[in-house]
């Protein structure tokens, strides 16, 4: 099994509820955010378009952050395909932060370790979707098993020609976007 997500950017209204839900679920007491929504503007007046790009961790199939981690604190869960972190093993070298092309990881100054989005693994254990998926007001997010060709996400990826960000990095992200 490989958990994955499809985000339909046509349905994203840029409300940042996903970021807030993520923070409330995972890191309410921290100053930083795991999930971010970027604003992307294209073109010049009067032909301007704007869309939003929500960015969780992409839980790549071939994660650069796991490859570089010297102490195996970052690891790829074989069962779920999630990219997770054994906090007690992290030496705080920040190499994974530098290696991640998407800037997903964040350093916790207080604890001296790197932290990241887990696709709400604690919720997945209870067969619940991640907080960002659950809360999305436009239902722009779909969650499921990428290895199962009949799952909603697999079908969407095929039907809507969803794509990943920076495919040339060779990371093979598990988060797909349906472009606006």
């Amino acid at each position, binding site marked *: 099994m490989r958990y994955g997500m499809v985000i339909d950017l046509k349905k994203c209204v840029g409300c940042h509820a996903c970021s807030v839900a993520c923070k409330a679920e995972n890191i309410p007491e921290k100053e930083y955010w795991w999930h971010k929504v970027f604003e992307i503007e294209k073109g010049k007046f009067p032909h301007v378009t704007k869309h939003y790009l929500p960015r969780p961790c992409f839980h790549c199939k071939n994660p650069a952050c796991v490859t*570089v981690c010297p102490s195996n604190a970052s690891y790829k869960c074989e069962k779920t395909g999630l990219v997770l972190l054994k906090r007690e093993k992290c030496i705080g070298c920040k190499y994974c932060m530098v290696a991640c092309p998407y800037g997903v990881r964040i350093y916790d100054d207080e604890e001296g*370790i790197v932290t990241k989005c887990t696709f709400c693994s604690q919720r997945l254990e209870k067969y619940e979707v991640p907080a960002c998926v659950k809360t999305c007001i436009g239902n722009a997010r779909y969650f499921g098993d990428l290895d199962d060709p009949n799952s909603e996400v697999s079908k969407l990826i095929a039907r809507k020609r969803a794509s990943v960000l920076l495919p040339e990095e060779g990371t093979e992200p598990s988060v797909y976007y349906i472009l606006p």
Partner: protein
Amino acid sequence: MSKVSIRFVAWIGLLLLLMLLGLYAISVVFPPHPFPQTPWYEGQVAFGGTPEVPWGILVSTYVFFVVAGTGICLITSFGHVFGVTRYKLIGKRGVFLAVITLIVGFMAIGVELGHPERLMIYFLLSPNFSSPIWWMGFLYMLYLAFLISEFILLIREDTAKKGQKSIFYRILALGSTEISEEEKERDHRLAHIAGIAAIILGISATSTVGAVFALLKAKPLWYGPYTPTYFLLSAFVSGAAILTLTIIAVHWSTKEKMGSKVEELVIELGKLLALFLGVSIVFITWKTIASLYGSIPGEYETMQLLLRGDYKINFWIFEVLIGTLIPFFILLNRRTRTVTGVFTASLLTLVGMFVIRYDFVVAGQTVSVFDVIKHGVYSPSHVEMFVVIGLFAFYAFLYTLGEKLFTLGEE
């Protein structure tokens, strides 16, 4: 005599003061949670690192020291490994310098790490063989071990003599108080072997530091085989500079007249430095042109930041002018290639090299291949600066201590 000792006391006093500053800065961020902390503990919040630029001046200082350490080792080994007799003059001093340069470098990265105490545990218990940092650590540990063995063997004759009175020297002399000719011969042979191992490991380790950066596809300025190669070249540049600077500084501070052989060697090292700087000019020129010419996404933008953006003063004034061109021309001109000239050129080269490392590490992170993220910003916090100042003071202190404890001078 009393005048010299006042100068010496002042020197040590200054170093202690600066080291105290560094120690204070370290106590602001160390030890990490959950260990007991000082009342003024802030943790790594006190560092200037940002999500976009997590590696700051401590990482670049680490690179500055460890790469220079290899350079010192390589140049020193011309003598007792490759048999160029005149380089034997600086054998002991060079190996000692290489050892302490490496140690100070490790200290810089130790402060930068969030949990250095976990390093040794998980480094061994949970190694990731695909991580360049793991290989870098592994190779440097081995390298340091061989370097220290080499040093112990080189000074054994001296420490054995002093060992009759003091247990400290006797331990360093591996328990002996007298070295027979036979043993001396054997020590020399062993030192030669340790020296060869140190060269191989030093080159491997230094290029692996380059690889720590060069294997990251996400950072276009670093990515590719250029980086490890350039790290090796710059090892020679900074190594030659530190060596000459130290030899000259020691002679000046002790007011000991420099023998003609040493003076010739210092001038020769100056010429070598000029050669390395010349090769660097070729390297940097083509790297710059290649980055711009192909408009490689990310790399082009980073180079623009260096050439005309946030880092332009660092690049043109420090890297190009002070760090490369001025010392290059001082050393090329026969009239300025004096002991004073070589000293000045080495000092300028090192200032430039420090900035080269800083720009490489920091500017290299500012531009992400993921262009949605804004350009990262970083400026070192005062705590980081204090740590760096403290480390340099500690470096000088260690060297002074070494001069007092061992006979490092020319044979």
